[in-house]
């Protein structure tokens, strides 16, 4: 009798394994999502009524064509901008805001609701500087909102928003939404851009 053939390993299931891998990778691969700073442009139609805003309630930030930062007519470094903005927003000049921890300087903003940050840039300003400044100003608002959320509900604002978006979050969504909106009312983001 001839040599017995070596028993062949059954490779039929290899295809299944390959398919399984393929499906696994198909499911787990997430295409990278973009992220960025969301902004809302002001509508085109202009209201006829002139709104009178007190000078002390406006925090002017000017970026000139050489990327220099001018805050309230004084030169400032980018790293100091966030702190200055927080001081301005949280100032509570008229003492109507009981949760503010600001300096209560009568020369600065009345309360967070009235405080407006006005950002002006020149045509020659580079985009990266503009984004850096936008980022710092948004950070100032976020920091204040975080503090407020932390003291009020024991959670940071970012965490609350993440919970709200999370489908699997077990808590009461409506209540959370109300809380988020309350914080947004406490520190409204009033950032105006001069064209």
């Amino acid at each position, binding site marked *: 009798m001839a040599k017995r053939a070596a028993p062949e390993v059954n490779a039929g299931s290899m295809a299944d394994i390959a398919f399984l891998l393929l499906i696994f990778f198909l499911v787990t691969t997430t295409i990278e999502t973009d992220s960025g700073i969301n902004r809302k442009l002001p509508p085109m139609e202009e209201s006829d009524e002139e709104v009178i805003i007190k000078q002390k309630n406006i925090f002017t930030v000017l970026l000139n064509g050489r990327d220099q930062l001018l805050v309230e007519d004084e030169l400032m470094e980018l790293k100091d901008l966030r702190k200055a903005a927080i001081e301005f927003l949280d100032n509570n000049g008229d003492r109507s805001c009981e949760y503010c921890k600001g300096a209560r300087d009568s020369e600065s903003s009345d309360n967070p609701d009235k405080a407006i940050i006005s950002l002006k840039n020149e045509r020659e300003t580079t985009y990266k500087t503009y984004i850096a400044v936008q980022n710092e100003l948004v*950070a100032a608002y976020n920091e204040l909102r975080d503090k407020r959320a932390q003291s009020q509900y024991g959670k940071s604002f970012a965490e609350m928003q993440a919970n709200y978006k999370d489908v699997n979050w077990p808590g009461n969504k409506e209540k959370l939404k109300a809380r988020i909106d309350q914080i947004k009312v406490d520190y409204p983001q009033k950032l105006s851009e001069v*064209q």
Partner: protein
Amino acid sequence: MSKFKKKKSGELPAVSTASLPDIVFMLLFFFMVATVMRQNTLKIDNNLPFADQVEKLDKKDLVMYIYAGKPSENYKQFGTEARIQLNDDFANVSDIASFIASERAAKREELVPFLTTALKVDSDANMGLIGDIKQELRKVNALKINYTTKKGSATQN
């Protein structure tokens, strides 16, 4: 014993399926290579600036992309000033209105108010161009915008 009978065992040899996985892998690789994510071919430099206070831009179908930046190496004939790119080609500021209109027409009507315009602008572009784009977007009432950035500290800019 017949003359024609084989001397070895009479069973038919099983068809070897050992090469089946190879075929599957070949298919897998083919599709991996051939699949193109619907992305515009950029004709401009697009080095996004850094920011850390960012929000995610999910719901990809509700986003319109406007690119801007210097023409890249192969398109030097279009100048060195930052330019706008819509879909796959260079465009002027005046083209934005029709671009937004066509994007809106392609979406279901009830989704139109939720459309966001993502501005993917090169770090070195200047704000004059962005100001023009924003003005144009205001004219067509596309007010929700997003400055797309990379994640990182703003001081890296």
